């Protein structure tokens, strides 16, 4: 009986280890899914302002540098 119980515990541990291993190999650690909705930005000030005037919509203006301490790829 004790041998069976010990075997059961070993099997459970093995299953936990296998599950963890599966998670580590299938979940990308360096990638994220994109959110479903995004703000639709106009990247060109002149065209954006012209559109606002044309459609009588107020302007949500944001500016940022696409580099940090000279390194690109980050706002």
């Amino acid at each position, binding site marked *: 009986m004790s041998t069976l119980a010990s075997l059961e515990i070993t099997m459970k541990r093995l299953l936990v280890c296998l599950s963890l291993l599966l998670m580590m190999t299938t979940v990308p650690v360096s990638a994220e899914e994109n959110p479903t909705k995004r*703000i*639709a930005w106009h990247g060109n000030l002149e065209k954006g302002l012209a559109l606002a005037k044309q459609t009588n919509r*107020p302007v949500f203006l*944001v500016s*940022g540098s*696409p580099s940090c301490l000279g390194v690109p790829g*980050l706002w």
Partner: protein
Amino acid sequence: MDRSFLSSDQLIKATRDFVCIRTATYEDKQEATFLEWAFVGNTGGSLRIFGYCILSPDGKTKLRRSTRGPNFLYANSGAMAADLRQISAQYSGRAITTTSNPAVPQMKNVRLGINVASCDGLPSVVVFGKDQTEVDSLNQKLSGVIWDEQLAGKFIYASTTNSSDLKSVPGAGSQSGILVIKPDAFGIKGQLITIISPEVSAERLQESLLNAANAFTRISKTHGLHVRNGRQTGTLWKTEIPIPARQRTPSRTRQNPRPR
């Protein structure tokens, strides 16, 4: 830029009644003059890296005071969304639809487009044609589908007729089309995901873009580590206009240590 602040559903919904313009601060001299008026005003000083304000539709009146970012003005995105709704209610503007908003929101050039795409964790779409007529025709096609709620804001766009603008993207630049590109972590290089044919139908174009948007996974970045890696590998960005002296990096200022 605080991504979490600007990514709440109610805030994004409220922005649809605005024309949302996000410029790259030190990348255009003419834009910088306007940004100085909008963000610096009469207070003096130089243009800061980040700025935010709300303007009237003619772009001449500030409806809210300018700050370094919306999170400096509002306690949370819910408060900001409520204020945006209040502002837009005063105007009879038309919301984004394919008929009222036909323009593709282009970045100034491909180089900037790929970098901004990397910053946002989005794919870049580059319209590449043999001449301006072909580029205009492809942009016309794009404009008919990209303002759909499923696709709005999901790509960063740029156009070119010059294949050398695409030298940082292996496999691109030999055939015309709508190129979907995955930017690298630094937004300096790109990987060609797909080329959509110039002859594509509107339905097929929408489907292809939707597939690309849904399949795309952005690269996770840790701010400090990213900057350190960039500086160690010499992966640096040259802005179009000089960054004012007070924005310079601490490492540069440390070159002249204070006397003790």
